[in-house]
């Protein structure tokens, strides 16, 4: 049984870490980008960002004033048990979100879409989102918080099989160029692409590809992995850099996730995780151990399974 108090205290720590500490994989990616950048304005911007990450950590203040919209991804091992059950878990995550909003502090970004009511704590109808995933083994839970920023850089389009890779490339470039101008997408960013599913799941796949996969990770399908390399290269050949200034670095990495879709369609979504790629992860065990990390490790073989039954379970049954 995982204690509820541990869940809430860990969740508050994660909120703080996500807002303040840039994940190492993104930092390494941005440093590598800064080395190759030769546009004078773009270079200045990248150096300022690197200074900013240091300042945030030194001062323990949020790295960006727009602290995004906090949300939660919860991954549970099949044997995990939570004190108070899921209702208690959700209350703890909502409470941690509210507490961290005043504690860090974060910007109370969440408002009612029509009445603009602001509870000043980032909690409201449907906020924060809490999404779940499961793994076949384990008595642990993973708490993952992502504070995705930005109103720009994300788009969806229904493509069709006849659009092919050439059509996918066009929509990818259109998204980068349109939202890259003036730096609206807060690039260079981790770009996530969702392909397939339905409209809603396509958006989910693309968003998760950008926020739940790390820089340097590759899709296990070697042909998709090759596309990820090619798309990263393509995005960085536009000639646009940070803030939309002339430069070489638009994409720190490109991650693609797919889901089976209607036979007639080829849904596509593009998402940009901004310069402040806020994510933090911890695994909680029933004995009270907490292991912090920055890789959500969301896309396991189980999450990407394509058969009716999960193989290890079938073997166990035999």
């Amino acid at each position: 049984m995982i204690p509820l108090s541990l869940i809430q205290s860990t969740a508050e720590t994660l909120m703080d870490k996500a807002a303040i500490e840039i994940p190492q994989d993104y930092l390494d990616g941005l440093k590598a980008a800064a080395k190759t950048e030769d546009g004078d304005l773009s270079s200045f911007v990248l150096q300022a960002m690197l200074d900013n990450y240091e300042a945030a950590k030194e001062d323990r203040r949020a790295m960006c004033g727009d602290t995004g919209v906090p949300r939660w991804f919860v991954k549970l091992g099949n044997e995990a048990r939570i004190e108070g059950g899921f209702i208690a878990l959700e209350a703890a995550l909502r409470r941690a979100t509210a507490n961290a909003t005043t504690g860090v502090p974060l910007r109370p970004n969440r408002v009612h879409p029509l009445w603009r009511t602001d509870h000043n704590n980032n909690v409201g109808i449907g906020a924060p989102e809490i999404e779940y995933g499961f793994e076949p083994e384990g008595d642990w839970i993973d708490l993952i918080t992502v504070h995705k920023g930005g109103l720009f850089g994300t788009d969806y389009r229904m493509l069709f099989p006849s659009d092919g890779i050439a059509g996918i490339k066009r929509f990818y470039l259109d998204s980068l160029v349109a939202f890259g101008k003036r730096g609206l997408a807060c690039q260079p960013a981790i770009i996530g692409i969702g392909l397939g599913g339905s409209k809603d799941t396509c958006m989910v796949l693309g968003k998760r590809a950008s926020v739940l996969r790390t820089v340097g990770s590759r899709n296990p399908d070697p042909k998709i992995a090759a596309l990820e390399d090619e798309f990263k290269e393509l995005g960085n050949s536009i000639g646009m850099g940070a803030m939309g200034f002339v430069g070489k670095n638009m994409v720190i990495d490109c991650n693609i996730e797919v889901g089976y879709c209607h036979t007639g369609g080829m849904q596509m979504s593009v998402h940009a995780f901004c310069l402040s790629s806020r994510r933090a992860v911890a695994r909680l065990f029933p004995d009270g151990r907490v292991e912090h990390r920055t890789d959500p490790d969301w896309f396991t073989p189980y999450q990407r399974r394509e058969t009716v039954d999960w193989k290890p379970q079938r073997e166990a049954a035999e």
Partner: protein
Amino acid sequence: MSLREVTLSTTPTAEAIADLRLGDIVYLDGLIYTAREGVYMRALEEKANIPMELPSESAANFHCSPAAVIREDGSFDLGAVTATSSFRFTKWLSEWMEKTGAKLIIGKGGMSSKDYKSYFVPNGAVFLSTVGYGTGALLGRGVENVEAVHWHEELGIAQAMWVIRARRMGPFIVASNLQGECLFERENAKIAENLDRVYEGTRPAVMKRYGETDDRSDEVIG
């Protein structure tokens, strides 16, 4: 690096503004206030009295909501400071400048050269962009003190009018000048020269959308 660094007062002289060049890196000293849609609507549409002496106290309008909290004892805790996209405020800005004498509009992404020529230049104002849009911690360090928070009960923390005393707050980039030229449009034009080559081998979608453009010199703002 060939970029020029300038320290500027938030009640700048006309000469100091005229001297600014596109792409200059600016650090600010003095009082800055935040004003975005909430403040504009309240001051301009609802005609509420602006609770500051403008522009004598400050001619610097920051399009920003800080990551901040008002404590129960009434004190403020302000962490990071970052701009929000300015093009959304075009509707109010001309009237705001005339009313308040704002000379430095600080935000994200800038405006079009058409906006600069039609009401920035006549008001002797320029646009300063935050850098990378994510240097919130660096900008937060430049806040010496939060002097006041106006209208937070009416507008909420994010939309309130925060009055902050800046000490060498920055960096900012000069994104327009008194000729009405736009830094981002200059950069866009350079990048556009390369786009046909980048798009080679791609294909427009078989199903079109209303309102779509294939002219990649177009922008999504404005």
